[in-house]
């Protein structure tokens, strides 16, 4: 009985606060609100920044009431809904584990009508407060201004981790890529710089060093990184990559590995050793299991048919299919065992890349496309999930679109995933978040919120490699800049 009274009080209070501005007379409409970004039927983190949006339904006037089932409400006029952070936080805080409702009233021909209500669920599980990514134009060969950013997901603050403008001289810009962290923490992190001031910037226990990972025997410096969860070790792929263009296909470009291997870099000893180095295999995208005892990666068997390797790969590009393999690792003597196939994509005529293991070690999340490894350009690519206990793999329901879904990572508590998608316009990659429950199901994804709801349509850069962090990067942009200008320390191959 007490509960019912409490509920009535809360509802009446929330309605009374709404009734200040909401129209007294209106008709119920069954039209569903057309809002951008699509923030409908979601599960959202209780610590996320306001999900601001724009109403596209045509009307003379708009009034929107956002209210939590357990109380608190906000009333906003106009079709651009920008919610005050403090009020939004109150709603989320007080309605954790419950829903909030968005009621939109529109006025046409002097009469008010109420659109169908939107209801979103507020999860009990927090999302990691920081997300880092690279911002770059979706260009092909050339690049200019590139920045690595860190976004506070609990508000709208975005800061540079590093940008190449600060070291650009005489129109020479350095390419930045592949930022990675150890266990979501930033005291051990790395990213690469390519070009004139090239090298790998490694932060180890907060100390910064520029390292040259290219030795005479390696086919390239380290490319795709994976920090060991507990040790000062980084697994890298080394890749010789080619890029070729389609004259008509709307996927426009193919990025292919001509040769690739896996290496292990020992940060403390500044030494490199091979993990796998098979001439006829293309190994890439290493990822550690949370216990650090297994390394997962993608691998394609490649048997040259024509004399010229690169020509052969271009001609047969649709036949190159990657499987997901794992290899056991002994952290005591830093040795690897024998590789085993975890997911045989080739057997279903597909190609699987970017393995990522959930923090509880139960699930393997990966990208599945028709062929090749650079799935960010493949419209066929979707996110798949594999239960590592049952070995059952399936397309991750609710999250995929008709366009590209690719680069994905888990939050530190395993309840959220972030991934890159080109669903908005087919070209500019955007970061999407989705809730992942204990049963292995994902909820409808939503785009990372921005203060201005019109931000993404007006933004001309892609979000690359979204990675969660539990803390901001502490090394300053200027510290990176100073270190970047130094001569790198050369790593040695064992």
């Amino acid at each position, binding site marked *: 009985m007490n509960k019912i009274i409490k509920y009535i009080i809360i509802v009446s209070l929330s309605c009374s606060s709404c009734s200040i501005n909401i129209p007294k007379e209106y008709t119920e409409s069954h039209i569903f609100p057309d809002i951008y970004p699509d923030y409908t039927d979601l599960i959202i983190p209780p610590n996320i920044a306001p999900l601001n949006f724009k109403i596209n339904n045509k009307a003379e006037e708009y009034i929107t009431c956002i209210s939590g089932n357990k109380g608190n409400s906000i009333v906003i006029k106009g079709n651009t809904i920008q919610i005050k952070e403090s009020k939004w936080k109150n709603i989320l805080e007080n309605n954790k584990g419950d829903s909030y409702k968005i009621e939109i009233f529109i006025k046409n021909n002097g009469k008010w009508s109420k659109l169908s209500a939107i209801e979103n669920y507020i999860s009990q599980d927090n999302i990691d407060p920081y997300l880092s990514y690279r911002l770059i134009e979706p260009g092909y060969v050339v690049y200019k201004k590139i920045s690595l950013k860190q976004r506070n997901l609990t508000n709208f603050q975005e800061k540079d981790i590093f940008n190449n403008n600060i070291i650009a*001289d005489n129109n020479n810009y350095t390419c930045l890529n592949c930022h990675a962290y150890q266990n979501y923490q930033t005291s051990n992190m790395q990213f690469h710089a390519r070009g004139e001031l090239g090298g790998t910037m490694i932060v180890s226990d907060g100390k910064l060093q520029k390292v040259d990972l290219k030795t005479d025997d390696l086919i390239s410096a380290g490319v795709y990184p994976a920090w060991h969860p507990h040790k000062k070790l980084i697994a890298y792929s080394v890749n010789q990559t080619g890029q*070729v263009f*389609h004259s008509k*296909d709307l996927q426009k470009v193919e990025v292919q590995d001509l040769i690739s291997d896996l290496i292990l870099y020992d940060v403390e000893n500044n030494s490199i050793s091979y993990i796998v180095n098979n001439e006829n295999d293309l190994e890439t995208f290493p990822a550690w299991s949370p216990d650090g005892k297994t390394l997962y990666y993608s691998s394609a068997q490649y048997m040259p048919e024509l004399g010229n390797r690169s020509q052969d790969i271009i001609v047969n590009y649709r036949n190159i299919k990657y499987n997901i393999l794992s290899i056991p690792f002994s952290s005591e003597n830093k040795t690897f065992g024998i590789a085993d196939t975890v997911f045989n994509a080739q057997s279903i005529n597909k190609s699987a890349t970017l393995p990522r293991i959930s923090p509880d070690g139960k699930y393997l999340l990966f990208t599945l496309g028709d062929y090749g490894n650079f799935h960010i350009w493949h419209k066929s690519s979707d996110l798949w999930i594999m239960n590592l206990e049952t070995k059952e793999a399936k397309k991750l329901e609710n999250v995929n679109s008709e366009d590209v879904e690719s680069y994905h990572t888990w939050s530190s508590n395993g309840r959220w995933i972030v991934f890159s998608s080109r669903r*908005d316009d087919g070209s500019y990659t955007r970061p999407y978040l989705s809730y992942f429950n204990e049963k292995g199901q994902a909820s409808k994804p939503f785009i990372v919120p921005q203060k201005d709801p019109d931000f993404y349509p007006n933004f001309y850069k892609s979000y690359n490699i979204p990675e969660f962090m539990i803390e901001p990067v502490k090394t300053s942009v*200027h510290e990176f800049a100073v270190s970047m200008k130094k001569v790198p320390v050369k790593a040695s191959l064992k």
Partner: protein
Amino acid sequence: MVTRPIFAKVINKFPLSSKKNKGNNYSLYVITILFFLFCLLFTGIYKKDILFRIQEFSIFLPGKEFIKPYLEIPGGLLKYAAYYLIQFFYHPWLGCTILASLLIVLQILTYKAFNIPKKFYFLSFLPPTFILLSILKLDYIIFKMSGNEYIYSQLIGFICSLFILYFYCFTKTIKSKILYCGLITILLYPILGFFALGGIILCLCKDYKTLLERRKILFLIIAFLFLIPLLYYYFIYFSLNSNYIYTSGLLLSQHYSYSPGIWYMILSILICFVCYAFSPFKRINENNKTKENPLVNSILVFILCIITVVFTNHDKNLKNILLLDKWTKEQNWESIVQQARKKEIVPTPVESLYYNLGLWKEGYLCEEMFDYTNNTLFFMSGYRLVDIVGSQLYFQYGRMNYCYRWAIESMTINGLTIDNLIYMIKSSLVNGEKELAEKYIRTLHKTKFYKEDAQRFYNYLKRPELMEKDTEFVEAMELMHYQDILGEESTFLETCLLNNFKNIEVGNPSELELCMSAILSLKGDRNFWAKSMEYTNNNLLLPRYVQEAIVLFGHDNQQVNINYFPIQNNIKTRFKQFLQARETYKNIENEKASSLMKEQYGDTYWYYYFYINKPTTR
């Protein structure tokens, strides 16, 4: 005692005043008005095409996202203001009026801020003349510059520096001087960058006598100038290279290494200002209060105008390229063909590509092309054809992926511009990438002068059947019935186009013409005879160069009976003469022989075949 600058000694001895012009205060302003008219007419008539193109190579958009990058470095807002003003070159006369007006503001401020004596009135025209020259000297660099905004950013910057100097004159006490210099540096350094610091330096130069007597104050102000930007660098700016802390906002030589002349003009203004600041103009004014000499000043300003005209970039090829670009956008093929036939200038490969497009559209490609191709100049090194006409030509020839690629690459390097945005829209529309096209159209719609174009594209988006009534789109789409090829190199525009044309699936005479032109340009192909037969089989007239090629290849290939083809007798006769001439010159060195043959046979395919290199990697 402070040594008097040599410059001041020189100008003091220079007798400019005359009794005749005493007291005639308005005459100087007439000079200003005449200079304004000169700037307006010269830029409006002679440079309107390049200024219009510069406007296309930039964009100004309202909204936070557009302004944000300009706040990331000191002086960035000058660029923002510059882009705002550049957009008015869409209407060249309007743009030129704004430009001329600002040049006059610079002139008047130079005159006022440095207290230039009336008899040296012409000195105030030097800075605007240098700015004007820096604009008029623009050449092919407009296709390469990552920002054409310097046209206005430097002009506004110098105007602001002069304002800082002008208002400094109102500070009478030492305290107010310190306060003024400190506040200006703190408040205006983020907005003006170098020009805020430059303004303060001019104040120090002008006031050096007073400040030298109070050296502590001088050092304090210099410390402001040194430390405040440094503090901004460490606490506010995270995108600023430490090398440019004090020069951010100023055009630097390395930014325009391809056209050093532009940088020299800016440097000249800096030197002018420093000299003026150290000059004892104030004392001269006090000694010769009413003296002025409008006649001498007029003559000197007139000389400046003559110098401007002389040192302007008069490159006819550049002018022609701009014209051809304009006609291509208007689909005015007839004018392009007429321009080619005039043969007034030796074309660059860019012009040849435009000529070939015009000739093809008008149906004269295989009839006339080698008449121009054989006379093409080698283009300046450092410029790739694809950067200049890549998107435009790839669109015209139905290569939408390449059109889009080079528009995107241009956006990556040069930033979003009207030019690359329009090609991103066009190629996305043709490719049916609706969401992408809509994103770009929405941006174009935000511009001041391209709303109508945006609306037209929006109509195409919503009703694609309208696109089929637009000849530009239709003709491009008609060329799109080719198979996807992976791995083709589109960086080398000419060879890429020729390889595409060579393999085109011929469906009509126009495509046959394109295919044959490629076969001829590539100096033959196994399909040559089959394609030649298509002319006769379809009762099409054999174009001149196809006839010449048949005679040439038939001469080498005895298995082919060239009598099957209707070859004009004069072509057969001329070919015999050509072979005889070749025989005659066979012992002469190649270059000389080529030159001699060109005089007689420079308009033939045979000359192209034997003496001109195939397009390779331009």
